[in-house]
């Protein structure tokens, strides 16, 4: 059981005060939603948690070990990140793209085995892009690319999922399918930590919420305690109307 913790973590957003230090405990089975307006530092937080960016102070611990002291390969075996932005670089097919999720598990001279290939194909099927396996990624639509990116992390099969706006570019049906996939991962003992812009997806699928304010202020806890209209209204500077549907709150912006 792998867990991710932060101790007095202050992310390094240039030109911003320290704000509140984050001491998070991301445990197996939890689904975290990170909410905040543009520029609140959500992506910076994601990259810091993945060890791709040094924090201003504090530490990120993977199973009690400081992330920056671990080898990248070691980290990648436990922790996967769905990026918000991707570069294309050279042309690659959908299947090849999913298959690089096995990279941290293969030694230098090792070729991908039939098992690796099966894992990649299963991930593509799960994300509903198996029929595109031989297409070049550069020829896909934004939503299809997003699903391929998620399939790559699913092929990597990490104990901790970091996902930077995983529902970006997705149509309604695939948004729900992706949220269901991530919840299922959590039920199977993985931890999921994702940035979202949709309050209602967070209200319905997340059991923990972190609110990030543009000035570095933050609060976090169980979803029911965090998703209250007053907090959300001050977070976005937007008045909200609230109702309830199937036991989950629904937030609608009002003019």
């Amino acid at each position, binding site marked *: 059981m792998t867990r991710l913790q932060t101790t007095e973590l202050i992310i390094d957003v240039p030109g911003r005060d320290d704000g509140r230090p984050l001491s998070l405990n991301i445990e197996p089975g939890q689904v975290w939603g990170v909410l905040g307006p543009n520029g609140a530092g959500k992506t910076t937080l994601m990259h810091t948690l*993945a060890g791709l960016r040094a924090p201003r102070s504090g530490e990120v611990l993977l199973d009690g070990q400081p992330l920056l002291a671990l080898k990248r*390969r*070691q980290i*990648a075996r436990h922790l996967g990140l769905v*990026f918000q932005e*991707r570069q294309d*670089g050279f*042309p*690659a097919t959908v299947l090849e793209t999913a298959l690089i999720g096995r*990279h941290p598990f293969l030694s230098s001279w090792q070729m991908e085995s039939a098992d690796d290939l099966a894992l990649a194909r299963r991930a593509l099927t799960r994300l509903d892009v198996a029929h595109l396996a031989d297409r070049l990624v550069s020829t896909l639509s934004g939503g299809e690319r997003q699903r391929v990116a998620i399939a790559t992390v699913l092929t990597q099969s990490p104990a901790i999922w970091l996902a930077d706006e995983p529902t970006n570019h997705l149509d309604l049906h695939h948004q729900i399918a992706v949220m269901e996939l991530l919840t299922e991962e959590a039920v199977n003992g993985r931890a999921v930590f994702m940035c979202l812009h949709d309050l209602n997806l967070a209200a319905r699928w997340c059991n923990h919420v972190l609110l990030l304010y543009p000035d570095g202020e933050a609060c976090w806890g169980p979803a029911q305690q965090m998703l209250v209209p007053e907090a959300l209204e001050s977070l976005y500077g937007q008045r909200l109307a609230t109702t309830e549907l199937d036991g989950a709150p629904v937030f609608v912006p009002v003019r």
Partner: protein
Amino acid sequence: MRGYWLPLTLLAVAAAMSFLLSVTVGSASVAPADVWAVLTGQGTELQRTLILELRVPRTLAALATGGLLAVAGALMQVLLRNPLADPYVLGLSGGAAVGALLAMLAGLGGLVVSGSAFAGAMIATVLVFGLAHGTGSWTPSRLLLTGVVVAAGWGAIITLMLAISPAQRLPGMLYWLMGDLSYAGTPWLAITVLVVACLLVLPLGRSLNVLARGPMQAAALGVAVRPLEWGIYVVASLLTAVAVTTAGSIGFVGLVVPHMLRLVLGNDQRLILPACALAGGILLVLADTLARTIIAPEQLPVGVITALLGVPTFLLLLYRSR
């Protein structure tokens, strides 16, 4: 191993055939049967001299130099995530030539010239990549502009050095600038470096595939990005420097060969890199054979032929990259 061996075997056969062609064809043709006789220790004195002392070393040098340039080009393209990167276009060959000419101007020879060319290539690499590295990524236009301007700078320094150097050194120096295999001495340094470099980078093939998707994505998938990037820098500069010391600055092989191979074979570096080593050699052997025969008994510098192939390819790539 999904179909790695077939293309590599075909390329190896093609390399052997181009080798045979290059050895038989020239100002004086030798029948394949006579070539075989010489290679197995028979044949006339004249044929032995012609083949063993002139054509075989020269062909081996072409084979190795072409491989060096193509692999260097392929590595730089992955490093910069840009199919337009090439040692010649980015001014690395110019830097290596300046280094070599400086050593020759000082009256030094042999290893010092090679070492000086390597230093020149490294300085050029750091200069171009350092200057072009803006706020986080190498944009194509910025990189190319920097490369072109730095290459123009090397050109000016070369002209200056030619203008002030004593007349008896000029012919030897001019060979650097034209890219000519007729001065290529022993090919063994180039062959050794090519083989060692291939053995070094092949295990990195999959890491390079991941790096081609951007440094952040690569780091997230367990690649130690910084050490890998610096390793590739050094290897690509070394390959360029050795190629330049063997045959002068031959342009565009590093651009044309990886591009053609990617069109046919896809973009798996585990296949592309060894394929580049073979196909680059084939291209340069054929270009050199052409250079030797087209206006025989006169010879053209092989750099002319590769430039005639390379310039249209480069323009086509640039045109399509928008």
